[in-house]
């Protein structure tokens, strides 16, 4: 039985474990440490943890200042505030001068559940990706998250990473030769009829969808695209050329995120049908997380339907 853990939990533990190895690592939160799981670091290393209060704009600027005197700050809050409230601070004060600040948005997507639309950030991929020079990540499971945190700490430059609230099954630890590298997607399952390119917890949905499709005789490749920007263009091109159809899937608006990144690249370089699966330009709503995801079709069946649409376009 594979480990089931929320990526926010894996993140918090990984960050805490790195405290001793990197004296420059500092962690800031905006009164949400218990939810973002930065409290693991707070317990492990209280002298390098800073609670900046409910003031995300200031938190991002303070982190920028700390980076300028030699620290490696990770700032933490919910995705909606990290990418939304503080967007222009991230753009002008972190990315424009290319400072080494890691912006971490927990509680991304519809799977926030009961808290509803105000807290279900579906735009973070799109608006963070729009900033020049920004790296955008979202790991799919605990194993990948642990490696992503280490990679982010070692990476010198601005980056945004989304964390998920729900516990998710670990799938990357069973892959032979799996390694994590920023900007390099991972093929989790091979296939020849279509490629499903997924990010975050949609990777597990994509694997389930591939099983269902296999039962119908459709061979689907599944790519875990943990880095939305910079996009692994070589892997996308290979998928387009070898399978002739692509479905993207993300727990985010289909406007501007992973689906857009893939569609833009494929349309300009190796045109094949690309069908985007995600949230269709609407706000989320309250409910149990799985019920919300199902209500918006963000599940394996939703992906299966999009695959059939893509295959129809391919013919």
């Amino acid at each position, binding site marked *: 039985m594979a480990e089931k853990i929320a990526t926010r939990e894996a993140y918090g533990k990984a960050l805490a474990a790195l405290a001793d190895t990197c004296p420059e690592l*500092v962690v800031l939160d905006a009164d949400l440490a218990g939810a973002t799981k930065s409290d693991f670091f707070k317990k492990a290393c209280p002298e*390098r943890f*800073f609670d*900046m*209060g409910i*003031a995300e*704009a*200031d938190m*991002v*600027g*303070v*982190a*920028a*200042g*700390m*980076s*300028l*005197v*030699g*620290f490696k700050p990770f700032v933490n809050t919910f995705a909606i505030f990290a990418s939304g409230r503080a967007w*222009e*601070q991230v753009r*002008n*004060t972190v990315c*424009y*001068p*290319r400072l080494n600040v890691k912006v971490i948005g927990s509680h991304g997507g519809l799977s926030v559940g009961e808290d509803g639309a105000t807290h279900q950030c579906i735009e973070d991929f799109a608006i963070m990706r729009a900033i020049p020079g920004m790296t955008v990540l979202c790991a799919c499971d605990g194993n990948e998250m642990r490696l992503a945190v280490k990679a982010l700490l070692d990476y010198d430059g601005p980056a945004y990473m989304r964390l998920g609230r729900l516990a998710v099954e670990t799938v990357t630890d069973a892959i032979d030769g799996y390694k994590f590298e920023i900007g390099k997607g991972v093929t989790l399952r091979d296939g020849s009829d279509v490629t499903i390119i997924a990010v975050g917890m949609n990777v597990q949905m994509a694997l389930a969808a591939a099983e269902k499709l296999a039962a119908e005789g459709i061979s689907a490749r599944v790519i875990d695209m943990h880095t939305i920007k910079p996009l692994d263009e070589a892997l996308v091109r290979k998928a387009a050329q070898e399978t002739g159809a692509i479905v993207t899937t993300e727990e985010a608006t289909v406007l501007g995120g992973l689906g857009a990144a893939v569609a833009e690249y494929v349309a300009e370089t190796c045109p094949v049908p690309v069908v985007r699966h995600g949230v269709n330009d609407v706000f989320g709503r309250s409910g149990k997380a799985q019920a919300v995801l199902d209500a918006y079709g963000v599940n394996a069946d939703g992906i299966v339907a999009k695959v059939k649409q893509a295959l129809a376009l391919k013919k």
Partner: protein
Amino acid sequence: MEKTKLQQLKLQAARARLLGVQMVHDAASGHPGGSLSCMDVLTDLYFSQMRIDPKNPADPDRDRFVMSKGHCSPALYPVLALRGFFPVEDLKMFRRIDGHMSGHVEMRHVPGVDMSTGSLGQGISVAVGMALGAKQKGRDFRVYAILGDGELAEGQVWEAMMAANKYHLDNLCACVDVNGLQIDGATKDVMPTEPLDQKFEAFGWHVIKIDGHDFEQIEAAYAEAAATKGQPTMILAKTVKGKGVSFMENQVGWHGKAPNDEQFEQARQELEAAIKELEG
């Protein structure tokens, strides 16, 4: 205070004013009004207060400065040039497509600039982060910032005030350039911010009110800030927008407008006369 030192500071500020007005004129765009108003408090920082070495601009133990009102590049760039961070001739590259001197203060291409700014309210948070970082590292460098009084309407400024108070950042000294004017009119009409002294005191800052064009008061204020322990210092510098150029003084229209050739000629004559008198 030695008379010669004050005279030297006044002279550098007058030279910086001329260079600032010249670069705005040459670029036919830029922000002269607020640059001229903060020129004296800024000149004093770079020529009297800050521990800096233009030959080693990346020294980790140097004092830091953040121009939170980042449109005032025509103040900071001339002061950095006069202080020796780069040749005065580089100012010709201001706001030009073939140049490297961005319209708003920029750190990656202009030697001596510690932080890129331009979006109001954001620089002061960065200064807080630098000061917090110095404390965290046990380093003794100091951090300075200049804000505009119009900028104080940005909520982020007050977030930063709370954070500086929380961490007792006595290595941080900020200065508000209280020239009373902003783009759309008088600050008291656009968005009243007074009483500033009571507001900053309520936020836990040590407040000093000065005439921002009197170098004796400026020197005393920075010394008082350096001697203040356990809390950050806010200097409220009452200034004249457009200071030093008669037709720009206290005129809201000179916030972000370049002088034409005729106007520049008059400004040049006035500032050169001031420089000549100070060179005496």
